């Protein structure tokens, strides 16, 4: 009974990603889309907060990463890039979706 959480705001401007991570349960997936994908990069001031939630699956939308020039090599360890079809699969394979607007 896992939840797919989607976050779409830059974590450098907005608290939504941190709030989402604080509420996600082990086994849930947090998918970063749109401006939230900036949170998927390594070497930022947020990397520690992201790494701390080790029980949660982290993913980022590849088309949004590419649009923002974030190469796959720059992703934090453990973050999986998915395309729109992968987004649909995640939505279908979890029991509910929660958007952190």
């Amino acid at each position, binding site marked *: 009974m896992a939840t797919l959480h989607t976050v*779409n705001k830059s974590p450098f401007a907005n608290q939504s990603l941190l709030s989402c991570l604080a509420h996600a349960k082990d086994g849930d997936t947090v998918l970063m889309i*749109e401006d939230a994908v900036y949170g998927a990069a390594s070497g930022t001031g947020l990397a520690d907060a992201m790494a701390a939630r080790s029980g949660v699956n982290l993913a980022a939308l590849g*088309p949004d990463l590419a649009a923002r020039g974030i190469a796959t090599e720059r992703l934090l360890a453990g973050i999986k890039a998915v395309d*729109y079809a992968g987004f649909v699969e995640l*939505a279908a394979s979890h029991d*509910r*979706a929660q958007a952190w*607007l």
Partner: protein
Amino acid sequence: MKFGILISEGPYTHQASDTAYHFVKSALEAGHEVPRVFFYHDGVNVGTRLSVPPQDERNIQQQWSALAKDHGVDLVICIAAAQRRGMLDANEAERQGKDADNIAEGFRISGLGQLIEMGIETDRLMTFGD
């Protein structure tokens, strides 16, 4: 699986309606059903037929109208949100004494009950907003 889609932001200003479009297209290609997309908040502005985006940009309204036509997706604009924001169909325009309307083909105006109904009748509700 049946997906219900809620779009809460207007076109061009926020990426929400673009992301929703790519999600719906991919879901349909994967064999899922998307019986309805509900437009709320500024999302109602997606349905205007009066927009003229630059020629080198996508036309968001036309993308949605094409999905409605090709896949029978029911595009519902919330009437209460639409009234505040000046989105009207011909019936509403007449009822409100307005001299013009602006809803595009494939979109229809209805009540918030359609959103709840979508939540009840689909397997998974996805929200795209800001």
